[in-house]
């Protein structure tokens, strides 16, 4: 036990002398269904809202049938001229049927170097959850999403979102997510408004975010 710890905690306790000993410390005091705010805001069918919000934040969105997915993945990569493509080891092989690009598989056990990632043209992943109202895709480093670095360094991120992964509001997503996993919430491509409040898409993260909504 360090002395700074004791001093800080001692000061906190002294500062809270007005709080009655034994004050109810249970938190939260109600179940998830009784929270005093909405789970979502009823803005329409989830997939339509998701697509609308993604487009609003300058992501490129394609709605595809499951059978068309491999062709669409190949088409996205081809349009961008992507020939070296990072793929998490756990991504379904079926996504890449007929894809002419060179696939660079990555996993925590067999990670690519940063130079490899920096030299790649694109990355293709799945996601954990998508939030329709805010146009947000959440990655949780699951097998089809991989290490955080692979969706960060390449300049083009193609993300596959299944219809059954889409929820309407933020609270629903938070309930589905496991905080023990490293999470990345993505809402559109990297952006800045630091210069005279003009929004510029594309600073350090991928400048092109392409979302394939399946179903």
């Amino acid at each position, binding site marked *: 036990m*360090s002395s*700074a*710890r004791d*001093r*800080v905690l001692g*000061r*906190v*306790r002294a500062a*809270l002398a*007005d*709080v009655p000993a034994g*004050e109810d*410390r249970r*938190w*939260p005091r109600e179940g998830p269904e009784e*929270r*005093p*705010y*909405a789970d979502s*805001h009823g803005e329409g069918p989830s997939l339509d809202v998701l697509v609308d919000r993604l487009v609003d*934040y300058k992501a490129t969105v394609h709605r595809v049938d499951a059978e068309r997915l491999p062709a669409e993945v190949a088409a996205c990569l081809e349009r961008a001229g992507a020939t070296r493509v990072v793929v998490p080891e756990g991504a379904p092989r079926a996504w890449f049927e007929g894809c002419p690009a060179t696939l660079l598989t990555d996993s*925590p*056990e067999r*990670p690519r170097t*940063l130079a490899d990632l920096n030299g790649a043209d694109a990355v293709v992943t799945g996601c954990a959850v998508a*939030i329709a*109202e805010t*146009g*947000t895709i959440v990655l949780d*480093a699951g097998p089809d999403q991989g*290490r*955080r*670095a692979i969706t*960060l*360094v390449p300049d083009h991120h193609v993300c596959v979102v299944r219809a059954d992964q889409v929820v309407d509001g*933020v*609270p629903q997503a*938070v*309930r589905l997510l496991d*905080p023990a*996993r*490293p*999470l*990345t*919430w*993505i*809402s*559109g*491509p*990297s*952006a*800045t*408004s*630091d*210069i005279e*409040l003009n929004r510029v898409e*594309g*600073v*350090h*993260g991928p400048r092109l975010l392409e979302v394939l909504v399946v179903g």
Partner: protein
Amino acid sequence: MSGTFLGIPPFPDAARSAVEDSQLRHNLRKATRTIRGKRTEAVDELGADWMRLRARGKEVKDHTLRHLDHYLEELERSVQRAGGTVHWAADAEEANTIVTRLVQETGESDVVKVKSMATQEIELNQALERAGITAYETDLAELIVQLGEDLPSHILVPAIHLGRSQIREIFLEQMAEWGTPAPADLTDDPRALAEAARVHLRERFLRTRTAVSGANFAVADSGTLVVLESEGNGRMCLTLPRTLISVVGIEKIVPTWSDLEVFMQLLPRSSTGERMNPYTSTWTGVAPGDGPQEFHLVLLDNGRTDVLADTVGRQALRCIRCSACLNTCPVYERTGGHAYGSVYPGPIGAILTPQLRGMSSAADEALPYASSLCGACYEVCPVAIDIPEVLVHLREEVAEGSGHLGEKALMAGAGAVFGSPTALEAAQRAAGLAGGAVPRHLPGLAGQWTDTRDLPGLPKESFRRWWKRDGRSEG
């Protein structure tokens, strides 16, 4: 190296020179108006639920603060369980010593930094520099401020006081000294400037092995740290290095993971006026094979327990640094952030800085007067901090205490800028502003002083009506 706020003159003096700077006034007006408009739209989209989320945000923070010792200990256990190391710092010096030692233990002399108010507050960069360690700011605005040897002037947009051509000049002159130079044909197009920053920092991100960050939230039950950002520089710093050191104020705690569902709705909408910011990273200790393999959390007091001890002023610790109160404040819009002489400018700075620093100087004692008490800051605050209430409370303390400033000196200083319609009109004309767009009178510091003493003050109601028309209040 970036500057320091020490030696900045007390608010009335600093404010006087700022209102005379027409470029600054132009930038501030444009910027704060733009954000205000976007924010109103983003908030209105949630309808009546906004006020419910706001009440909940307040409740979560109040509950946490009332049991802060308990939640600090819980956070410590959770972070340790997940493979992180927890350090405690009672003041800036202790925090700087800890971080310097941790960086030295990595054997590195360079660190990359994510924008963090706490590390600015403790002047970590300067402390690291004294130990021969260079801290590279990576947020675009922070980079501009660091390269320009300037000071941040806004919580969210620290370079809000600079225009694009000034930024271009800074990049052309300074980037080469810090790393990858700016292209010789750099234009002042924001796209070109952002691209120059991308190129300038890319190699540094790939190479640097130690990062320093703050955090927007620290979740006690899960041990999770949360950083919201836009550019991806945060993700770079939080993901690529081997060692991550996060300096976090003890007031940043929320009790449970599910509390984030409230703040992840309140903060982006109130801050940048977006439904969600482009990137949010959350991490819990160390994830094997993914991201930094060494994680240190430095819990910082540095005056926060003094704020906590004041039952009226305590509410300032609810602040989630969204900056809505700055963007809505008529005084801030005219003076800019530097006049507040602190990393925390605007209405929140006016109540937080003097409490954190213990009103130890004339500058701190003047801060509670840097307001017209119009109440707009309270209305927009996503955690319902009653800033006017705290301002009045602090004014009482200044008036009662054996202060550094007498009332008369204060009134004279403040009145010279805000109390005199002529001085203000002159400043407005200098900035080429249309008379109809701004109130003829700002209820100035001196005006408010008289208001609270039941003497005839400036017409508060008409001012408020104007303010509502201008779209500042949710009202």
